[in-house]
């Protein structure tokens, strides 16, 4: 399929972007950083095109559903969402080094998708349970939420590295030099962490609500404590705790960074672990 080919180029573009962002930290060359940014935009464009093309291919096959219905499609959409939030953050903060810690998520996702066997990549018609527009709303909102958490996690990892280095080199008045000088300041990293969660959390809320609405419409219960639902709620609780700690107790810096990383771990388990490890209604695990 042609869309598979565009997905290959997407992967390549993301990989180049990642390498350039890492080189940017090492070389401190503005142009390398700009190159990374351009590659990321090209990859994002290709990713968008590929998803659109796959949708078109599904229409040509007579099915016509949005490409959000199995593991393969969800992974490439996850990569797309990560880029979406990342590029928004880049427009706002213009911190190229962040790309070195965010692009790996997109690259890993895309590479994994490329390695899946052909039968997982093929466009399958939807079984009756999935024939609903709610599927589209539900998946889009959930994944944009997950993507926000991915960016927050990337920024938090950078934060911890930077803070650790600064403390070793003896206090705040000798800002970490060397490689670390390309990192955004700890204040900005902390802010990115927070802002990304502020985008991710309402989207996850909407994802849970649309999922509940769909479940109610499809089988008459908006909540059945199935493992996937429960895990999405666990993630929701963790980030709710993060936001409250932040709003009212001023939890910033280290503690916030760790909570964000833990939250993203739970997010990944919610997305993949539940399907691969536990059993339930959401069945892409078999893939």
């Amino acid at each position, binding site marked *: 399929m042609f869309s598979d080919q565009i997905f290959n180029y997407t992967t390549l573009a993301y990989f180049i972007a990642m390498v350039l962002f890492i080189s940017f930290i090492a070389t401190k060359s503005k142009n390398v950083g700009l190159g990374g940014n351009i590659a990321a935009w090209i990859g994002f464009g290709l990713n968008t095109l590929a998803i659109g093309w796959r949708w078109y291919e599904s229409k040509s096959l007579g099915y016509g559903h949005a490409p959000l219905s199995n593991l393969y499609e969800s992974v490439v959409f996850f990569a797309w969402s990560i880029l979406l939030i990342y590029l928004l953050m880049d427009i706002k903060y213009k911190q190229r080094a962040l790309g070195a810690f965010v692009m790996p998520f997109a690259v890993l996702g895309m590479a994994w998708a490329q390695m899946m066997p052909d039968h997982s990549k093929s466009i*399958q*018609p939807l079984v009756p349970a999935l024939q609903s527009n709610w599927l589209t709303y539900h998946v889009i909102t959930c994944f944009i939420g997950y993507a926000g958490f991915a960016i927050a996690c990337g920024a938090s990892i950078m934060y911890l590295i930077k803070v650790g280095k600064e403390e070793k080199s003896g206090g705040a008045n000798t800002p970490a030099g060397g490689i670390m000088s390309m990192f955004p300041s700890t204040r900005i990293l902390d802010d990115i962490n927070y802002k990304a969660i502020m985008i991710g959390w309402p989207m996850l809320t909407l994802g849970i609500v649309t999922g509940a609405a769909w479940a109610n*419409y499809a089988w008459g219960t908006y909540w059945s*404590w199935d493992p996937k639902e429960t895990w999405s709620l666990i993630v929701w*609780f*963790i980030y709710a705790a993060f936001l409250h700690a932040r709003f009212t*107790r001023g939890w910033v810096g280290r503690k916030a960074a760790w909570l964000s990383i833990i939250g993203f771990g739970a997010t990944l388990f919610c997305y993949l672990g539940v399907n691969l490890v536990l059993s339930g209604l959401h069945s892409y695990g078999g893939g």
Partner: protein
Amino acid sequence: MTTNKRSFLDALWDFCCSLKLTLFTLIMLAATSVIGTVIQQGRSPEEYLRVYGENTYRIFEKLGFFDMYHSWWFLGLLALFAVNLIACSIKRLPRVWKTVRNPVLAPDDGLYRTLSNMEEMVSKQSPESLRGKIAEYLKTNFAPARVTEADGKVHFYAEKMAWARFGVYVTHASILIVFIGAIIGNVFGYKAYVNIVEGTETSRVWKRGGSQPTPIDLGFTVRCDKFSVTYYEGTMRPKLYKSLITVIDNGVEVKKDREVIVNDPLKYKGIVFYQSSYGPAGDPSFVLSVTERATGQNQTYNLRQGQPGRLANGLPFRVANFAENFQNFGPAVRIEVMPPGEPVRAFTVLKNFPQFDAQRGDDFIFSLDDFQQLQYTGLQVAKDPGVWVVWIGCILMMVGSIIAFFMSHRRVWITLVPLDGGKTGIKLGAAAHRNQAAFEMYFDDFKKNLKQELNS
């Protein structure tokens, strides 16, 4: 003694309002919820005994781990969550209400000192000439100001989005509304199921939960006229499960032949029917035609599965088995011919390939003309009068969160103090209840422009 008691109650109240309790409940809910995703919920005791063994089973049973989301301690956590939300709102809301309804219109130096955005300057102009300019400036650049005069000073107060302060409370209330909706659904609603064989009707459904399903009278009758499954062409992948349902109320067919498919339920009098499963009901029956090769004579049989027939040469045969879709070749029957004293001769006949059996080379050529397999349709039945309350809660939660996160109550105070020689001291302060960093930048511009405006 009384003070002791008093302080204990105070402490308890503070505890109920505290954010520590919020963080504790959120983390505990997250952590304990994991249990129910690892231990499968609502299985039979035999299954649990097999998996966990006697001792572990006993402990888990005591702790309610097999239905943990309804266990006393989990519901207790949810109750704590609700108490926390209510208490915190009771404590905070009056104060917030006051901030919004009765803002400080004539700030003193103390208030100015608490503001992180604050500026003082001196103008050569008199308070009277500045007054109009400042009012105009605030109106065009921020918001119309309220002006107060006291002790010869002139105070301006302007604010934007004061209502944003209520976003948090809308969100918190929305969670309680969702809880209320869930409770209404649990108390006044039910989840049930019913299996209806094609062509038959029922007015009773079976309630789930509890050790035994209990019957519930619908108060009307539901008939299944037909059930069908369609597959995507050339595959066994189901495309559509469809029941044709007729609802009869008081002898009147109020809904006739309504299609009920997955993701499109039928609703009548607050009771919703969802397509959920299906299966064969009773033995299928077949129309077979058998041609004698030698004479070309043809005979037709109407047989149920297992019912014996007799060929023209007197040998008995029967339909031993049936598949609706045999290896993707479509409907097929397994025929057994039973010559007395000899082994049974068995072979498969495909409905879609009537010529096929001739190749077997037997004296008799079988074909399957038609078959009838009655199906039952399995419907989930739900009545949930609380569901609308839940949706209202969800909508409020979204609206409230967006207000709480992204909208900020911004306030600006300006005080004019008359100085000697017709000069005026200008004090300028501002605050935002969210996103202070962005507001600081805004305030810097605001100051600069104001200075220019006043000097021009």
